[in-house]
């Protein structure tokens, strides 16, 4: 394997001697920089405390092992400095590098395949001329030998990745198409939000592939909720304006992004133009609910069901109410409405009602900090309340899932115990 890589690299080096970039138009480089933000390349290609785009971030791939993102600065030895435009295009669209490697789909090339040729040129111009070269060697992956052969990835790519640039859908207007292009393509929202199939492929790569697209998925100990039209668990009750606010600032009047989404906002979406954000939101709002049965699993409609009055009167007959008053009400308050843009509302908040409760349990166990953006002076945090036992957490989450008009199945203590175990395994792996 190694020899093969080396040979291929040597060959590639020979062939690429012709490659050298003529200085590109600065506005092209600038556009490329913007597109790199949309694509959130920095999130995966920069390790904590390391130079930007120099790679080295560890990514744990289920069933496979640990791989490291690579150096994509224009350094000629360690980075992609010797890539021609065609090389770059092949890596971005097909997951094939000039040295003959097949990239793991941890690099979201199945989504990036939708990038238009013009945008690909802008990205290339940016990476070649707008990024500082960094001479940092790539790290060897930690994958068991019997899984480390990369050739099956070619078959994977053939089977699952659709390598066509985005085709405009004439049934929709320009803004919708722009939104679809950004969400399905560079934004690679599906990498986290679309459920994966038996070979870890995203089950759908676009709105035309069916109702699995952005229907919610589990990623790295978080549940990335549905971005489709379910009123309960998805974005059915969100306005376009709210979606824009969330992507731009990490919060709305009544909710706050948490977990993996905060990084997407901090690195990527906060920097997008309002036009692009509105386009994305318009597109997301057009996705119908995944199916009727999901919508019935939980509902969030802000409604006076007597919870506020009972808490104010000191009546806590339901399990979890007393825990809520003692540990949560200082911030989320008796009315479950929190404080606008400071503490998210739990009342009427679809993030609480999914059947997959892992994010919810994780927020209570680990706490969380809102995305830090240029738009708000402070980013607030929820403290870790892991001192609560499994029964208390199950009770309090069942309580918030069924108060102020919320309705969802109760949370079991065993789910909390399981998430505690999973998170401590995740922590020791790091």
């Amino acid at each position: 394997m190694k020899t093969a890589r080396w040979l291929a690299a040597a060959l590639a080096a020979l062939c690429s001697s012709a490659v050298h970039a003529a200085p590109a138009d600065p506005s092209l480089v600038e556009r490329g920089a913007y597109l790199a933000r949309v694509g959130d390349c920095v999130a995966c290609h920069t390790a904590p405390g390391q130079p930007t785009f120099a790679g080295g971030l560890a990514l744990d791939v289920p069933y496979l092992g640990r791989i490291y993102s690579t150096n994509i600065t224009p350094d000629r030895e360690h980075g992609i400095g010797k890539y021609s435009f065609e090389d770059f295009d092949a890596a971005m669209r097909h997951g094939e590098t000039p040295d003959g490697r097949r990239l793991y789909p941890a690099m979201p090339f199945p989504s990036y395949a939708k990038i238009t040729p013009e945008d690909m040129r802008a990205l290339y111009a940016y990476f070649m001329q707008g990024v500082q070269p960094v001479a940092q060697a790539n790290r060897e992956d930690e994958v068991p030998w019997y899984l480390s052969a990369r050739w099956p990835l070619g078959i994977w790519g053939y089977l699952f990745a659709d390598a066509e640039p985005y085709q405009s859908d004439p049934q929709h207007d320009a803004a919708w198409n722009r939104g679809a292009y950004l969400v399905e393509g560079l934004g690679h929202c599906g990498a986290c939000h679309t459920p994966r199939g038996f070979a870890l492929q995203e089950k759908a790569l676009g709105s035309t592939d069916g109702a699995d697209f952005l229907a919610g998925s589990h990623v790295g100990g978080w549940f990335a909720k549905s971005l489709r039209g379910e009123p309960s668990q998805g974005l059915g009750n969100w306005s376009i304006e709210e979606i824009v606010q969330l992507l731009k600032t990490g919060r709305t009047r009544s909710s706050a992004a948490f977990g993996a989404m905060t990084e997407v906002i901090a690195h990527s979406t906060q920097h997008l133009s309002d036009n692009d954000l509105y386009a994305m939101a318009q597109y997301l709002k057009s996705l119908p609910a995944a199916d009727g049965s999901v919508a019935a699993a939980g509902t969030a409609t802000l409604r006076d069901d007597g919870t506020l009055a009972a808490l104010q009167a000191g009546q806590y007959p339901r399990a979890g109410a007393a825990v809520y008053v003692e540990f949560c009400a200082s911030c989320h308050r008796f009315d479950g409405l929190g404080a606008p843009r400071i503490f998210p509302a739990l009342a009427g908040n679809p993030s609480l009602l999914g059947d997959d409760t892992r994010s919810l349990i994780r927020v209570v166990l680990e706490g969380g900090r809102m995305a830090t953006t240029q738009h708000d002076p402070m980013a607030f945090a929820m403290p870790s309340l892991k001192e609560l036992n499994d029964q208390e957490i199950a009770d309090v989450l069942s309580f918030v899932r069924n108060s102020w008009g919320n309705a969802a199945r109760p949370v079991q203590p065993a789910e909390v115990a399981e998430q505690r175990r999973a998170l401590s395994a995740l922590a020791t792996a790091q």
Partner: protein
Amino acid sequence: MTLLTALPIRALRKPALALATVTLLLAVTPAPADDSAAPKPTPVPMVAPRDATIPGGPEGELIQYGRRLLTDTKRLLPDKVGSSMNCTSCHLGEGKVAYGSPFVGISHRFPQYNPRAGRDVTLQERVNGCMQRSMNGTPLASDSHEMKAIIAYMEWLSKDVPSHGQVEGMGIGDVNKKLTPDPVNGQRVYVAQCASCHGANGEGMKDAAGETIFPPLWGEHAFNIGAGMARLFKAATFVKQNMPIGIRLDGRLGQGQVLSDQEALDVAAYFTQQPRPDFAGKDRDWPKGGKPKDARY
């Protein structure tokens, strides 16, 4: 002595106790010379019982009522409370938070000498001290159902603490008093780290129903000039340990410990000096002298 006057427990008649407090809160300060042979109470870890363990029956109902009075004071006692505040606006997290002036262990520590009163005060009197100053309100009668409930809750919180009442994290901690506060920088700190919640003009924030979400720091609905919080060092100490809330991933409320001593003093110098209600009884304070230099009158 100047140190002691700023400490929560004015145990001047119990030097050993004072010593324990000083070493607890100010590990770096040399302990005052004291050769008394009395055994020094060792502070015990603060373990607050869960609300869910409040017993049933009339006894439990009284405790529950007391807890509710402390956390929902303004709404439950509108005629008694002048400010837009609850006791737990300062005694954070139901009086269970270390360095948030907790009530765990407190019932064992009273009656206690109080230099501001110049005599021993009972726990009931201490509660009324905060009622009249911090809450800018009127005192509760000692034999009222409300006062009994508040004391019952404090006793319940203290039930597992040894009789000396010393717990780790009692009081509000301390701040370096040698620094020179800079209210101009304090205003900058306020705008950056406090105004999101306490408002551009210190007015706090209310919800649509008119209930306080974030209490005011100055103006007519704030604590009055007789309150401990109106004093520079107390305010700075409180803020350093407890404000902002929701800023860290640990602590019961994700509170405090993000400002340096200097920043805490600066911001305290800024907000304590803003206009606030007067305190009618101020002339009777510190009858035996020893008025601290950060008193507002």
